[in-house]
């Protein structure tokens, strides 16, 4: 399932994200593919959630940087893209401008 720009995806543990850079691959929480919020689908009861606590407002990127997401509801999720763990996107350190 492609990762579509501007779409919101849900993880089994309640984490929610919005895609800010899309790509052809699949987002997942560990082995469990995330669901598109507008799909109407639900995770089966007992679907396990990942252990990593994702924070509101943080961005994650795929290993090649081509796909990016923004967490808009915090929650547990071992976030992956095409099976590879996504990395926290850190802002480039900049000095004071004063």
């Amino acid at each position, binding site marked *: 399932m492609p990762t579509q720009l501007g779409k919101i995806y849900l993880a089994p543990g309640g984490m929610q994200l919005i895609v800010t850079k899309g790509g052809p691959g699949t987002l997942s929480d560990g082995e469990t593919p995330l669901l598109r919020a507008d799909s109407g689908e639900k995770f089966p009861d007992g679907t396990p959630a990942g252990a990593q606590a994702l924070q509101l407002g943080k961005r994650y990127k795929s290993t090649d940087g081509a796909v990016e997401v*923004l967490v*808009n509801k915090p929650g547990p999720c071992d976030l992956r893209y095409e099976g590879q763990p996504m990395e926290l996107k850190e802002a480039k350190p900049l000095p*004071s401008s*004063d």
Partner: protein
Amino acid sequence: MGERDGPPAAVLYELIDDGRVGVITLNRPERLNAYDITMRDGLYEALLAVRDDPRVRAVILRGNGRAFCTGGDVAEFGSAPSAVRAREVRWLRDVWGTLWQLPAITIAAVHGYAVGGGFEMALLCDQSIAASNARFSLPETGMGMIPGVGGTQTLPRLLGTGRALDVVLTGRWLEARTAARLGLVSRVVAPSRLAAAARSLARRVAGLDHAALKALKRAINDGLDQPLEGGLALERRLAGVL
């Protein structure tokens, strides 16, 4: 941005009302929310999160502790590597341009001191609600500087040039009710009512039609930068696509 291990984050960000209202809290109370690099980076991250989340219709900007924000942290003054690098940094991390251009309606909830850049942050918001204990000042001119968070542009648009110059040249304190009388804040409430008043306004705004809100904000903000004829044409265009 949120609170995890290590020191408290300089900026906190949360979503309420099913994600339709963002709350950004300046969180350096021990420094009266003076604006330093950590606050700059945290605020920028939070503003980008608001910008990129289409659910967010309104955002409240507030401060923790005794002050809304006391402007640039003097401990960092003069620490920019060079004037050229400082200009580059302001361009690379355009906090104020991002705040001004947010599609969401921005509401400053101001209490205590709002000084320099803190005052100017509120001026960049679409609406400001002040607690009765709020005090505003732009002291930069007396320090050999000029307001650098948009104040030279936002203040005259609200006050006209004469009164704006009076505020900037004198650096005098404006009490909350004076600020309201001048049109710099839309309402003054008791300090204990500030959070509720800001949330009430944000909820009301968040319940309005999103496309109409965006069009309204654009018509007013962009229209002011044009002659009346251009502003009226802009309004016609925006109204025509709703």
